[in-house]
C-alpha cells in the first residue's frame, strides 16, 4: 500500500476525512512545532503558535491550492504567527527566554547549547531564515517564496545571521582565553 501524498490527504480532508487530516497533522506537526519553538525561543509559546497554525491551516483547507506543497504553506503560517506574537510581546521575550532555553537544553553538549542560545539572540527576521534553512532544510529560493521576499534578501539575511553567529563565537572564545 503506497503512502498517500500530502495533496491526496488534503483532498480527502476537504471531503471530511478526519483520518486523512490526522495523518496530515502527524506528518507535519513536529516540524511546525520546531519552527515555532525556534522562532519564538519558547516552548510554551511554540505549543500555542503551532496549534493555532494548524487550526488556521485546516480551517482554510478549502482555499488551499493542492498543486502547491503543503509544508511551506503551513510553515509560512507558523512563521507569521510567531512573528506576530514576538512583536506583541517584544519586551517580554529576552532574558526570560534564554533562561528557559538553558533549562531545556541543559542536556545538550556545551557547544550546541551556546549555539542555540546565540540563534535565539538573533533578531526575529534573521532567526527565521536560519531556522528555515538549517532546521528544516529549505533552500533560499523556497524560503524566499515562503516569506514573500526576494531571494537576494534571503541570501543577505542568511549571510548576516551567520556573520553574527561567528562573531559571537569569536567573542566567546576570546572571553575564554
Amino acid at each position, binding site marked *: 500500500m503506497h503512502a498517500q501524498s500530502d495533496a491526496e490527504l488534503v483532498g480527502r*480532508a*476537504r*471531503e*471530511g476525512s*478526519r483520518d486523512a*487530516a*490526522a495523518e496530515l*497533522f*502527524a506528518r507535519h*506537526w*513536529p516540524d511546525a*512545532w*520546531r519552527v515555532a*519553538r*525556534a522562532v519564538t525561543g*519558547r*516552548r*510554551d*509559546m*511554540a*505549543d*500555542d*503558535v*503551532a*496549534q*493555532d497554525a*494548524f*487550526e*488556521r*491551516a*485546516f*480551517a*482554510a*483547507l*478549502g482555499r488551499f491550492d493542492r498543486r502547491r506543497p503543503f509544508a511551506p504553506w503551513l510553515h509560512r503560517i507558523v512563521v507569521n504567527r510567531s512573528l*506576530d*506574537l514576538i*512583536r*506583541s*510581546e517584544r*519586551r*517580554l521575550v529576552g532574558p526570560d527566554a534564554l533562561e*528557559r532555553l538553558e533549562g*531545556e*537544553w541543559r542536556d*545538550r553538549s556545551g*557547544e*550546541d547549547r551556546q*549555539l*542555540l542560545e546565540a*540563534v535565539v539572540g538573533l533578531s526575529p527576521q534573521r532567526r527565521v531564515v*536560519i*531556522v528555515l534553512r*538549517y*532546521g528544516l*532544510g529549505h533552500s533560499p529560493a523556497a524560503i524566499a517564496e515562503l516569506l514573500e521576499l526576494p531571494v537576494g534578501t534571503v541570501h543577505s539575511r542568511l549571510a548576516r545571521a*551567520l556573520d553574527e*553567529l*561567528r562573531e559571537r*563565537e569569536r567573542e566567546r572564545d576570546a572571553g575564554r582565553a
Partner: protein
Amino acid sequence: MPDELENRLERALRDAPPPAADTTERALRAALDALPAAAGVHRRRRRLLVPAVACAVAFVFGGVTLAATGGRLPLVGPAPRHHRAPPGSEPVSTPGAVLPRGAIAFSAVAAGRAWLATSSGAALHGRPLSALAISPGAVWMVEGGPSGLRAVGVPDGRSGFTRPVRGTALAAAWAPAGIRIAYVVRAPGGDRLYDMFGNGTHAVLVAAHALPQAPSWRWDSQAFAYIRADGAVMIHNVIDGATSPLPSGCGLHHAAAVAFAPYGGLLAIADHAGRVRLVDTLRHGHGTCVAGAGPGQPKIAWLAPRELVVGTGATITRYVVGLAGADVTTVPGRVAGIAASPGGRRIALAVRDASGEVHVIEARTPRFSEASHPLQVYRVLLDLGRVAGPVALTWQ
C-alpha cells in the same frame, strides 16, 4: 559548500527537543475541530443555523465580524454536537444573589466561587468556578475551571461547547455582539490571554503575559483592551489579529484597570496611584487626564457613553467626559468590585467592611455635582462572607 558552523547549526536545530505528547494530542483535537464541514454536511448545518443567524444579526454588528472571519459562523452557542449536562452540573435554583430591579442577569465571581441570578430563574449560589462570563441576553454562560471553559445554557442548563485549556481559566469576557470570547488562563510561565469564536473554536493566543482580569471589549466587538503583565495597555483587533500598545500618558505607566465605553472608542485607564486617563482609541489615541481618584485597586464602570465611575479604596468617583472635576462619594468599606446597570442609573458595589466581610449592594448612582452626596443604598444583593481579592461583577 557548508562550513563547520552551518553543519553544527543543522545538527543542533534538527535535534531540538520534540513537543510534549499532551501538547500534540491537544493540538490534534483542536486542528480536527477546525476542519471545514464537507459539502453535504455544510448544507445541512446551514439549514439548522438559519434561526441562529437571525439571532446573530439581531446583535447588529455580528455581520461585520462574520464577514471578516471568512464567512464562518462563530455564533453564540454550542458547537454542533449537543449533549445534556451531566447530573449535578445544572444551574442551581437556590436563594443566593438577589436580582437587581429590571436586570436580566447579575453575576459575581470572587475567590474561586460564582454567584448568578437571572430573570429566567436560573441561579448559581457559590459554585466553585474560577471564571464566569454571561453572553449578551443571558442566553449562555461560560464557566471556567481547572480543566477549561464550558458553555452552559442559562435557562435550561444544557451543555454547549467545552474548550480544554492547559491551566486554569481565570477570567472571561463575551464580546457585546456575542460572537467571540476573550479569556485568561493561568499556565506555567504566566497568565495567558486568548481569543476564540463564540462557539468555542479557533482559540488564538493573544498574549503570553497578561494581568489576570477579563479584558474589556469595544462596543462593536471588533477589538478589546487588556493589560499586559508589565502594565502596558494593549488593544487587540480581532479583525486583523493585530495587537498594539497604547502610548502611556498622564504619568500612568502601569495600568491596573481598563474599560471601554459602551459606545465609541473611549477607553478608561486607571492605576493604583489613583490616576485616571481617558483615551479615544479611534482618534489616534488622543488622551485626557482627569482628576485623580483615590489610591487603591481601581474598578471602572461606565454609566453612559461619556460618564463613568471609578471605585478605589473607600470612595467612588464619578466623571463626565468634557467636564472638569469629579464627584467623590464615600462608601461604607473598601470597593472590591463595581458594575453599572445598563441605563447607568444604578450601580452594584462589592464592599469589604472593616471585619473583612464582603457585601454586594445596589445603590443609586451618585449625582454629578460640586457637592458630594451620600451613597443611597437600595438593598443588599449578596453577602459573600470573608472572601479575599477582587470581586468581578456583571449586570445586564
